[in-house]
């Protein structure tokens, strides 16, 4: 499987950025894009880009971030994980709990505070619980919400929950040498179990209602969405840039060498004395954490999270993005995620004109998935390098 062959790695004596010009290119383009969107936005600029579009772009950046994480775990390390979207969702849930709790608490305090006697803490938390969980017929605050009012705690959860889950699951799976398609199926099973778990009303995360109203930021409830959307856009751009740098650095050195070697021949790496399971676990966990962070940035922009987001199909779509964009190169993942998700929201959001063939009318909302499915088959069959592979042609033809 010839992927792109890095000519400059840790074994040569050159600095990281010089030996990886694509990183510089990427950072430059991302910076320009961010500035461009800011200038054109409603909140801070000319108002040519609607707040809604800013949110879509910000969310796309988050999807690009999880896509590069997926690329590292699959394209570089060869683990076709069908579970990374579950980590993404968990990150979203962790931050969503704080957003929902804190906002509800502010509202409750305001309304109870209007009474003659100020409310006790117990009364506040009972009222908050009743408001949040009334929809699933409960009025008690589940144990996992004990610290939902604390932002630092929930931020820690954004990292810890996906990280620990990935660590435990990965340890179990890699330890028993489950590889290849088995591992994919196993990660899919994990995702399924998680989404089924979250679908239950009594697990404390509001069942299939999910968490909602996440676009309202406690402490900034009176700031217009046009401004908040830009904050999140910047945060997403920053996270994507930082994530790209981190992963580019990780895969460029000897570490990258080892994980690509694991992808190509895991047994041989073992005989070189490397603890293959440890490496896989490291990659699996670190990408899970990045996925969680991407999710924590995504869902406040989406405004709502529910268990359907975590369903196994979402993780498969993630693999589809990376494959279409091109595995084994980080910018490929970014291109794939951005291209497919934006195209998808354009075609299914009713933005695209339907095509009248006279005898049949092609309605994009009906045919987009057929197109995506078949297109994906074609990419797998004929362009295993994906869209990123096109760059190889360009780069090679120039000199």
């Amino acid at each position: 499987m010839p992927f792109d062959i890095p000519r400059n790695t840790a074994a040569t004596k050159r600095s990281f950025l010089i030996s990886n010009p694509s990183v510089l290119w990427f950072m430059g383009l991302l910076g320009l894009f961010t500035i461009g969107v800011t200038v054109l936005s409603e909140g801070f600029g000319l108002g040519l880009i609607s707040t809604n579009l800013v949110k879509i772009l910000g969310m796309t950046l988050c999807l690009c971030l999880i896509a590069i994480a997926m690329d590292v775990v699959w394209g570089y390390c060869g683990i076709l994980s069908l579970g990374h979207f579950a980590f993404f969702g968990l990150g979203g849930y962790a931050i969503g709990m704080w957003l929902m709790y804190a906002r509800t608490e502010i509202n409750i305090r305001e309304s109870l505070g209007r009474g003659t006697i100020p409310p006790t803490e117990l009364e506040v938390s009972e009222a908050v619980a009743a408001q949040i969980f009334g929809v699933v017929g409960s009025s008690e605050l589940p144990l996992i919400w004990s610290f939902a009012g604390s932002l630092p705690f929930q931020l820690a959860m954004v990292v810890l929950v996906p990280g620990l889950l990935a660590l435990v699951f990965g340890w179990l799976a890699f330890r028993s040498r489950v590889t290849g398609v088995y591992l994919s199926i196993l990660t899919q099973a994990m995702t399924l179990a998680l989404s089924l778990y979250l679908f239950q009303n009594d697990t404390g995360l509001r069942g299939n209602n999910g968490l909602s109203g996440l676009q309202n930021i406690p402490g900034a409830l009176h700031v217009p969405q046009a401004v908040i959307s830009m904050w999140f856009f910047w945060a997403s751009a920053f996270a994507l840039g930082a994530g790209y740098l981190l992963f580019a650095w990780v895969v460029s050195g000897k570490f990258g060498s080892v994980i690509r070697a694991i992808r190509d021949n895991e047994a041989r790496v073992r005989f070189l004395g490397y603890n293959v399971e440890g490496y896989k676990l490291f990659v699996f966990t670190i990408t899970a954490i990045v996925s969680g962070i991407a999710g924590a940035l995504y869902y406040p922009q989406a405004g709502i999270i529910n268990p359907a987001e975590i369903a196994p199909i979402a993780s498969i779509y993630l693999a589809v993005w990376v494959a279409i964009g091109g595995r084994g190169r980080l910018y490929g993942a970014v291109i794939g995620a951005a291209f497919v998700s934006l195209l998808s929201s354009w075609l299914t959001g009713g933005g695209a004109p339907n095509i009248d063939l006279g005898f049949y009318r092609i309605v994009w909302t009906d045919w987009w998935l057929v197109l995506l499915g078949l297109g994906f088959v074609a990419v797998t069959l004929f362009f295993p390098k994906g869209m990123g592979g096109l760059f190889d042609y360009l780069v090679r033809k120039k000199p």
Partner: protein
Amino acid sequence: MSTLLEVSGVSVTFDGFRAINNLSIAIGEPELRAVIGPNGAGKTTFMDIVTGKTKPDEGRVIWGERSVNLLKYSESQIAKMGIGRKFQKPTVFEDQSVRDNLAMALANKRGPFSVLVWRATDRDRARIEELAEEVGLSDRLDDSAGILSHGQKQWLEIGMLLAQDPRLLLVDEPAAGMTPAEREHTTDLLKRAARTRAVMVIEHDMEFIRRLECRVTVLHEGAVLAEGSLDHVTKNQQVIDVYLGR
């Protein structure tokens, strides 16, 4: 010359087929040893056992001065103790440059975190150059390993083995598919390596073994049939029977 590896009374059964049958074999340090035997004699399975890939049903595998029981360790741990293995089919990482292949094999810390922050020191670079020189790939360091010729891949793999700085080298059919000139080069490499460490070569080719000028162990049906100099074992009637058929 002290005993480095001692395999005693080892047996392995696959689905009722006894691949290794009460096998006992020992190698000292430094020593060059050739292992021969017809197909199905259990040569590769023997290597699998020593390197931890296959766990035997019974028997012991004892390593080094402190008599470590190798059966309790995983492949990577065994490799780190100083047993290097070259596979029958050349398995280098074709996607990566010769330099990276060698760098991966260098005897450095193997943990994920130390590897993550590893950057080549001048000593590492010098060692890589030296190894490339040794296996004759100096001018191909920055080429992708995938475009090397078959023989060059074999050498690269031997180079990777040497980079690990093992005390015991297990080499499976190093000369397969090589031109006569390449064979000669390979023989030299192995003989030089065996000056300071134990090297065990599995080979079919009698001519190649003759040139190694070393002690020979003949395996048959998973057990040792004969052991001694090449001339000694080729005179053994049983060995002749096995090789030529009755």
